[in-house]
């Protein structure tokens, strides 16, 4: 049983005219075994929240706390956070030319598990995880994310999730850019991850269609840099019907990307 607790989180980025505050007091608690969906209009700060939890250097925490089972996550380096059990599936995964996917996965597994996985079982494990996600084995020799299509990148994020087995996974629009079949494959991957362990998921999305595959326990509406409403799965359905207008104080609702 683990708990990821975010309290009073304020985050700024350096912008042309000085620091610009994006998160304005986020409070959110996710326990293992729970899946929380976060939905909100473009630019409301969802990715900022995800990056701030992961420790991206661009985002400055100006107030608040993030703890994992009481441990101060914000005091940790990016890699320490990952080794403590956090994982971020990124909205825009980064290309790393020259580093093969195989080498990358093995280095990551070695770091997270604290020892190099045994070669024989590792090869089988990777092959199995790739085939579960309908990823061609040839990808193992390609450079990390380089030249991958949007959908291929997302599948590889979930591949990493399944191999690294974190305690908490933040999935930032892992569903966008996927066709119907890919969405099913990726959702199944996330569901296997949920079923395999006592883990928590924070699912950032614009669309309820992924929520048909991955049932959330809690839905949060995110607007203007904070959580403005929290409810059950039915809240997502309401958003699908009416958009975010009710939550964005008069501003016209924006459609998803």
């Amino acid at each position, binding site marked *: 049983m683990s708990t990821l607790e975010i309290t009073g989180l304020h985050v700024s980025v350096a912008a042309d005219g000085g620091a610009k505050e994006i998160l304005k007091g986020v409070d959110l608690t996710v326990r293992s075994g729970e899946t929380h969906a976060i939905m909100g209009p473009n630019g409301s700060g969802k990715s900022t929240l995800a990056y701030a939890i992961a420790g991206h250097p661009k985002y400055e925490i100006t107030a608040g706390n993030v703890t994992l089972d009481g441990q101060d996550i914000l005091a940790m380096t990016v890699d320490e956070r990952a080794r403590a059990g956090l994982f971020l599936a990124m909205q825009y995964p980064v290309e790393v*030319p020259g580093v*093969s996917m195989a080498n990358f996965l093995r*280095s990551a597994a070695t770091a997270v598990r604290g020892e190099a996985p045994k070669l024989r079982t590792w090869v089988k494990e990777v092959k199995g995880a790739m085939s579960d996600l309908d990823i061609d084995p040839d990808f193992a020799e390609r450079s990390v994310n380089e030249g991958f299509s949007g959908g291929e990148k997302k599948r590889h994020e979930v591949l990493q999730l399944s191999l690294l087995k974190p305690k908490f996974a933040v999935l930032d629009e892992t569903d966008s850019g996927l066709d119907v079949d890919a969405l099913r494959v990726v959702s199944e991957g996330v569901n296997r991850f949920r079923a395999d362990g006592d883990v928590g998921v924070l699912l950032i999305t614009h669309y309820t269609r992924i929520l048909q595959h991955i049932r959330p326990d809690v839905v949060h509406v995110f607007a203007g840099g904070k959580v403005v409403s929290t409810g059950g799965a039915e809240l997502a359905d309401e958003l699908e019907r009416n958009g975010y207008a009710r939550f964005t104080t008069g501003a016209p609702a924006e459609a998803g990307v």
Partner: protein
Amino acid sequence: MTVPDTAPEVAGLAPELAGAKEGQGSKPLASASERFTAYDVEAFEVPGGREENWRFTPLRRLRGLHDGAAFDGTAQIAVSSGEGVTVETVGRDDARIGEGGVPADRVAAAAWSTFREATVVTLDGTPAPVTITVTGPGHGATAAAHLQLRTTPHAEATVVVEQRGSGALADNLEVVLADGSRLNLVVTEEWADDAVHAGAQHLSIGRDAVLRATSASLGGDLVRITQTVKYRGPGGDAELAGLGFADAGQHLEQRLLVDHAVPDCTSNVIYKNALQGVAGTPDARTVWIGDVLIRAAAENTRTFELNRNLVLTAHARADSVPNLEIETGEIAGAGHASATGRFDDEQLFYLQSRGIPEDVARRLVVRGFFGEILARITVPELRARLEDAIEAELAVTGS
């Protein structure tokens, strides 16, 4: 020279007639084929720094190799002996000297005009790998040297030229491959921090001969290597690979000309540099100039050249100038590619977000980047040493 010249050389012409001075303007020679060559240093003007072939080189750091160096020191050349390996020390009057090629810049010509004795290493049959150690003249001294490697027909050999030590060295390295022979050549620049090396490599490929050359530039203050490949008969195959790691203040320059003047030959060039600078010191610098010339007679040529530069930090600058000139329509394939990329914070963040510590992440990227070059080095101890040396370079500022 005794080598049948398949292409018009302009060697021996007065410089004002032959492009030495024309080529010293700010614009490049119209064609690499017009490149001026001569043995005599005085045939070349003293470069001022604006000439096309000198414009990237910090002349002030050349220790006068281009102008007025005393050449008061000696670079030691030691050759490991073995069956099928003949080592001779000869004078400049030896008929074989110059078979590989002719200097194309003033420093190479200065070395040629100055060296007292040349080392000629002849490889016959299938000798065990040969190691040649070149040691600089020592701090503050300047030296000229001359080394020739030659194979007999159908020989198959591996030669490692390891270059270390201090001081400034200008030299010519001739490689003369006999018909049907095969040479695996590794040249390392493992100089001390003060060292300056301006080297000209003249690579002459016989009919159906195969050259697999790999260079590794790691040490030295300024290292400038020019490589010229010429084919003496059809079926020649030259692969030039190289890696360079430039750290703060270091200048690594690689210039090559592959001159396809006979049919049915192949060239493949792949060079990779990593750069790592430090605030408050001069930039880490790499320069790569890749000229490939396919003359009208060189039908059915196949050539590809690639340069990639990985900029690891700020305070680093990579220049890359690939140039392909094709004078015949009858080629089998020709291409070039050049790219300079930064190892940026986003990549570092991505790798770290998967639990990989920062130093491991940097190593992963650099090792991956150099992997295909290092894989060509078939001498395991040497490959391991170079891998270690690269990791040590990374550790210097690898926070």
